[in-house]
């Protein structure tokens, strides 16, 4: 008999993948599909539509369940918990009502004496035996749950009177006792605005310094250099690297604010100066300044090429989970729209804009 080899192979794959999921539901359906396919093959079909096969498998399962339910209810009706063969035949009769069988019309019949038995025995004798190809294990497999040791087993006595000793032991109290939460770092940046301004003012000076550095082309050290201030900012920014004083050019290679050497010597620096001055001097709403800045940007398009990705990281990483970065997050949120516009136009000026934005914002405040 042609097994429809490809089909059973496919079923095998389905069976193995479906067996992994959930309860025995998927597994049962897969098995039913195989069995039904074999029956239909015996009937004469050579191939199946998958939806038709699934439907028929579903009907098979429903039939089995219906038969079981009917037999069970007949047994219960007779006052028994366990079904016997008569119950099964009665259940079969119910299911076979639509088709009918010999002897159904007889009101006083015994279910066993009806034509149903004869039909089934005929089927058994005539039908060729088609064996299911696989060994089906008992399913669903119930995992044995091992209970914890009881009080008696451990040798303890239960702490409460109402809890008998043969019950499982209570879990160790350390597991459920609440311990004090680890203190957050004192450098946690507070969210309210007054503190925000303080933080920003702390950042202001080094940022001004940085801006000044651009204007001077990094030739001379900035005038506002305040060692005390730098120290405090450094101290305050101990935990938060973004609040610490920015590094001068060349001090550290890996800092995102460090620009490559060619920027200093680049002739386009004067363009930045143009943009910086009006921005710093204005005391307006951010929108206006943004417009003007944009106009300035449109007028002058320096072709400065930076190694990039850092400013965005600065801003986006500031969105991260650390509470320290909330200031940066706040400032970044304000300037996010600006940055997006810039990114669309050039995408490279954000690092330069960053400190300038901050200074502008600080002025506004």
């Amino acid at each position, binding site marked *: 008999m042609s097994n429809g080899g490809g089909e059973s192979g496919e079923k095998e794959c389905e069976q193995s993948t479906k067996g992994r999921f959930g309860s*025995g539901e998927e597994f*049962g359906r897969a*098995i*039913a599909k195989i*069995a039904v396919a074999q*029956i*239909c093959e*015996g*009937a*004469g*079909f*050579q*191939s*199946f*539509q998958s*939806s*038709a*096969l699934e*439907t*028929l498998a579903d*009907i*098979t399962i429903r*039939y*089995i*369940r219906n*038969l*079981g*339910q009917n037999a*069970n209810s007949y047994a219960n009706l007779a006052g028994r*918990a*366990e*079904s*016997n*063969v008569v119950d*099964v035949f009665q259940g*079969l009769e119910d*299911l076979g009502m*639509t*088709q009918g069988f010999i002897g159904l019309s007889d009101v*006083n019949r*015994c279910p*066993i*004496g009806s034509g149903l*038995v*004869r*039909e*089934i*025995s005929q*089927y*058994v*004798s005539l*039908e060729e*035996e*088609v*064996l*299911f190809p696989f060994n*089906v*294990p*008992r*399913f669903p497999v119930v995992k044995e749950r091992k209970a914890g040791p009881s009080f008696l087993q451990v040798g303890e006595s239960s702490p409460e009177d109402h809890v008998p000793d043969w019950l499982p032991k209570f879990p160790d109290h350390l597991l459920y006792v609440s311990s004090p939460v680890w203190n957050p770092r004192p450098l946690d940046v507070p969210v309210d605005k007054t503190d925000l301004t303080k933080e920003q003012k702390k950042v202001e000076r080094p940022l001004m310094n940085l801006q000044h550095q651009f204007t001077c082309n990094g030739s001379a050290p900035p005038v506002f250099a305040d060692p005390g201030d730098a120290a405090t900012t450094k101290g305050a920014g101990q935990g938060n690297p973004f609040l610490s004083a920015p590094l001068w050019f060349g001090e550290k290679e890996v800092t995102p604010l460090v620009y490559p050497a060619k920027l200093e010597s680049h002739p386009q620096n004067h363009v930045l100066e143009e943009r910086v001055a009006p921005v710093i001097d204005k005391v307006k709403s951010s929108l206006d300044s943004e417009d003007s800045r944009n106009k300035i940007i449109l007028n002058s398009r320096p072709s400065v090429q930076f190694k990039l990705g850092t400013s965005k990281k600065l801003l986006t990483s500031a969105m991260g989970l650390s509470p320290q970065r909330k200031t940066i997050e706040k400032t970044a949120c304000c300037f996010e729209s600006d940055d997006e516009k810039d990114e669309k136009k050039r995408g490279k000026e954000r690092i330069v804009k960053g400190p300038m934005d901050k200074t502008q914002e600080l002025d506004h405040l």
Partner: protein
Amino acid sequence: MNQHQQVNEGSGGRQDDDAVLSEFLASLMDYTPTIPDELVEHYIAKSGFQCPDVRLIRLVAVATQKFISEVASDALQHCKARQSAVIKDKRDKQQKDKRLVLTMEDLSKALREYGVNIKHQDYFADSPTTGMDPATRDE
């Protein structure tokens, strides 16, 4: 009620029935149904059927197999009828004498007689206006 009448009516009839039954159950143990026992056991256990006797499980399996084979043979008849209806001449017959495929159409026709009504979607559309004439579609 039914059972009372059966008990009262005739012990002779019952003996015959018993003989038939025991014979049948014996023959049942020789025949291994295609539907595996474990599957049947799982699903009838879900419906509350309790029985330690394996013969009853086999009985349920055989009954189900009989039902499915009847449905399949009906569907096969529908399929063959459709194939023969299309045959015009020899050439067509050879063309149409392809594999017999169990389709949803044949299955739904066959199951209708058993009281199972299945309607199968031919295709699925994204929206109600899919495939409609663009002029008639509401923009």
